């Protein structure tokens, strides 16, 4: 008798399984109830505001940034993603030579989004952007210069 019991029990479990998939299928095909697909280019992607997409440098309307060139981010970075090319420039008002960044180079291709550079930055010059459209056909395009051409240090950041 257990022979027939086995068969019937087995068929019952199979039908239970089919009930679960069917329970998802029919509401999905009729009312699209359980569909979880987001059709990405048509519907916008949901990106959380803290999403670590890439490091950017904040600039104000006068093309000024807050980076003093202290290199804290460069030291904090575990894998050499950030390179800062800097120079000492004579400040005409005070007459002192002041460190000024020439290029803040960011290798996005090497970045692991560990947040250490942003944590290390004393002047909040760099921050995360939620941009995730980063794919390119050429790796060299992933090397970015964060400070805009001709940008200057914002006044009052040094203090």
């Amino acid at each position, binding site marked *: 008798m257990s022979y027939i019991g086995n*068969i019937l029990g087995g068929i019952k479990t*199979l039908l239970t*399984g*089919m009930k*679960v*998939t*069917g329970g*998802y*299928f029919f509401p*999905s*095909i009729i009312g699209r109830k*359980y*569909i*979880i*697909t987001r*059709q990405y280019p048509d519907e916008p992607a949901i990106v959380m505001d803290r999403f670590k997409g890439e490091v950017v440098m904040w600039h104000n309307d006068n093309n000024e940034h807050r980076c003093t060139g202290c290199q804290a981010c460069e030291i904090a970075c575990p894998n050499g993603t950030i390179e800062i090319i800097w120079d000492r420039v004579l400040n005409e008002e005070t007459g002192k030579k002041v460190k000024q960044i020439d290029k803040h180079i960011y290798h996005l291709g090497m970045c692991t989004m560990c947040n250490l550079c942003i944590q290390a930055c004393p002047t909040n010059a760099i921050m995360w952007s939620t941009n995730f459209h980063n794919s390119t056909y050429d790796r060299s395009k992933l090397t970015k210069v964060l400070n805009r051409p001709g940008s200057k240090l914002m006044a009052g950041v040094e203090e």
Partner: protein
Amino acid sequence: MSTMILTQTNYFADLIHYLSDGLGWGFGGQILGYIIIALIYMTFFAVAGLLLVYLERRVAGFFQLRLGPNRVGPWGLLQTIADALKLLTKELTGTERKENLLYHTAYFIVIIASLLALSAIPFSGGIVAFDINIGVFFISAISSVGVLSILFGGWGSNNKYSLLGGMRSGLQMISYELSSGLAILTIILMAGTLSMTGIVEQQRDMIFLLKGHIPALIAFVIFVIAGTAESNRTPFDLPEGEAELGAGYHSEYSGMGFAWFFLAEFINMFIISAVAVTLFFGGWLAPFGITDGLGAQWAWGLLWFFIKVFLMIFLFMWFRWTFPRLRIDQLLTLEWKYLLPIGLLNIVLMAILVYFKLVF
């Protein structure tokens, strides 16, 4: 059981008759007729194959909370055509030390076997290319030829995964051919004929599934299980066994070589469903005869036939997207310890019922 004399028209036969005798083209006309019918079937093969692939992906999508292909064409209908074009233009790669003859004949065999089996299926009253009086027998014989292609492909690829897949397939076919044969025989006992058209005509008052009491029901269950196994679909997709064997017997095929296997797999599923519909659900006949009085009976027949086949196919798809795969020894246990004894018992039961005229 009374034997029914088939008086129905056969549109394909009429066509050949018209071309050879009606137009007076003689033998040439006959050949032309054959070519036209062959072209119709090949077009059907391609279209149905592509449509089924689309349907499978779409249904799978909804089972898995996705949408499935919906970008190319309206509702993504042209997706599989785009895929087929891609496969056509793909480079044919394969292993270097393959067994050339076997490797390349494999996919021809699979197409030929499916096309031959397709030819004996009555799509509607009078729409059957090859209406022979041993139709069921012919289909079950031809569809087991298809396994040769899998064996050839598995062996010829010179790949261990392909070989394992091919051998599994051989094992599976040989085993489950028995059960599906027994299930078919059970129905043949009721119908008293091997002709597909004859079997359908027998079900005019009531479909066999309901007519044959419990034995027919059991035969149906056995046939569905064996049919799933024969069309190599989950839970019996061991020859492909994605997680185990990569792609199984068609690992080493690319481009169209792969596409033929892929299409034939879906056509085989169609054939199994069509046979199931013919044997158990009354083929092209309208349920309870609701469209009997209307005109253009052949068109209504086609409609009902395809609706029923679609429902069967949907059942197979439902299986596929629900069940896990069996192991090779469990596959054999299921066949030899469960399906075969039950099938044998069932056929005896049916014979008794038929002998004492207990089926109505």
